[in-house]
């Protein structure tokens, strides 16, 4: 009990220290903080009414975001099938799956927006760096999911089909695939939804899609247009969520 009391004291001291350090070293000027409220209100005021004339840009931007998500997801699936096998405990030796899993964890640790910035640096502006970034970033998660789907396949039915005289291809088709397919489908749809949602903002770093217009309009003080695009993004996120809920109900 004693050591636990000490432990919570240490945690409390650490958290208080962190807060004090942030407050004292960020140079938050009290006057600016006090005037921030009205300023934000003023800023939001300039966003209404949203300018509906940007419908064209919204359509163009959303279509590009959708394409980035679709092609990026395809790329992620393409990388995740082999990497998922290499990260599987049941298919390869620990000497192989451990480093592959570490690699996937490292990929997952890098935020998408950062990968996108690097790719813009590497291949230039436009949807291409966005697609590559989504493919790389999503592989970190999807390959791990695929590895788990492979490892969750129960061996007994495979042995049973072997006993009945089924060849390797027939075992793959009738014992392994039926166990994996529902998991793979669910995880891939889940990751596609995340890809779509996350790639909405890729345009901010120049990696294509609807985010590009938000950045352009804010930079050029056209807040009413920025507002329309933001509303469109919110509407899209809600739509994706609704479709996902419907899909999950069907597959669950």
């Amino acid at each position, binding site marked *: 009990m004693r050591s636990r009391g000490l432990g919570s004291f240490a945690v409390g001291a650490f958290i208080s220290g962190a807060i004090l350090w942030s407050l004292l070293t960020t140079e938050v000027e009290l006057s600016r903080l006090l005037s921030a409220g009205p300023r934000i209100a003023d800023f939001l005021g300039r966003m209404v009414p949203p300018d509906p004339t940007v419908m064209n840009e919204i359509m163009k931007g959303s279509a590009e975001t959708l394409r980035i998500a679709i092609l990026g997801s395809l790329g992620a699936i393409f990388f995740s099938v082999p990497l998922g096998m290499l990260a599987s405990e049941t298919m390869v030796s620990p000497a192989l799956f451990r480093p592959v899993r570490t690699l996937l964890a490292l990929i997952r640790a890098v935020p998408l927006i950062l990968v996108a910035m690097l790719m813009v640096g590497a291949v230039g502006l436009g949807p291409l760096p966005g697609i590559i970034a989504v493919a790389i970033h999503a592989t970190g998660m999807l390959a791990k999911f695929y590895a788990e789907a492979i490892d969750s396949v*129960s061996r*007994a*039915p495979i*042995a*049973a*089909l*072997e*006993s*009945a*005289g*089924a*060849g390797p*291809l*027939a075992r793959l*088709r*009738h*014992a392994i695939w*039926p*166990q994996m*397919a*529902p998991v793979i489908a669910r995880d891939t749809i889940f990751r596609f939804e995340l890809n779509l949602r996350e790639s909405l903002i890729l345009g901010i770093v120049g990696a294509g899609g609807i985010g590009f217009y938000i950045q352009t309009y804010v930079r050029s003080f056209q807040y009413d247009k920025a507002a329309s695009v933001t509303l469109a993004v919110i509407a899209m996120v809600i739509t994706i969520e609704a479709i996902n809920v419907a899909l999950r109900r069907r597959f669950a």
Partner: protein
Amino acid sequence: MNLAVQIDDLSYTHPGAELRALEHVSLTAAAGESIALLGPSGAGKTTLMTLLDGRLRGWRGRAYVLGAPLDPDHPPPRARRPDTGFVFQEFALVEPSSVLRNVLNGRLGRMSRFRAAFWTPAFRDFELARSALADCGIADLAARRVDSLSGGQRQRVAIARCLAQEPRLILADEPVSNLDPARATEILTLLTGAARARGATVIFSSHQPDLARRFADRIVGMRDGKIVFDVAVDDLSEAATAELYRETVIPPGSGLRAVS
């Protein structure tokens, strides 16, 4: 005499295990016979049946199944595998697939490799699957997913898959271990009945001497990897069964203590 199984001096140790799972086992089964394997947990019943199914490597001794020798180093040729049917202790069904598909899986060894891989069962495969389902009393469950079934229903699916395979030797590993007494009797009735109707030999393992007596022609008792008795049903004595299942006596000073 026509022998379905003829094994002589079989010994086997599981990879990594210290004790032999089978020690100098010899046994014969006449075609059409029904044999019960009795014996406590770890006696080697599953090991013996798995070996007869051609799924163990590195054993020693001689084994003939349905007239052909088993090779200790290679699996049996594909053409011979469906002749031996196995009903697994834990069913070993493809859980997310339908009952009908699972039963059709029993036909995979009888189709060409192409048909088997690309899933084009012929009319005859469907017919055999349907009649196996009917024999097992689960025709109405054909479209259900296996993961929505009860233990007793799964056991019937596992048996139906085995029957659809048209085996001449049926190896059933504890086919009634997790069923209530009424269900257990039903399952063994249908298993031995279907085997008799098809002229197939049955070897089933069980922990229930009364059921073994009722459904087998011969009883083989196993313990610690050895056959301790091999008798016709009428010759099985109470004393022999009691001795088979007696508690392991732990020698004093072995460092282990019996749990009261």
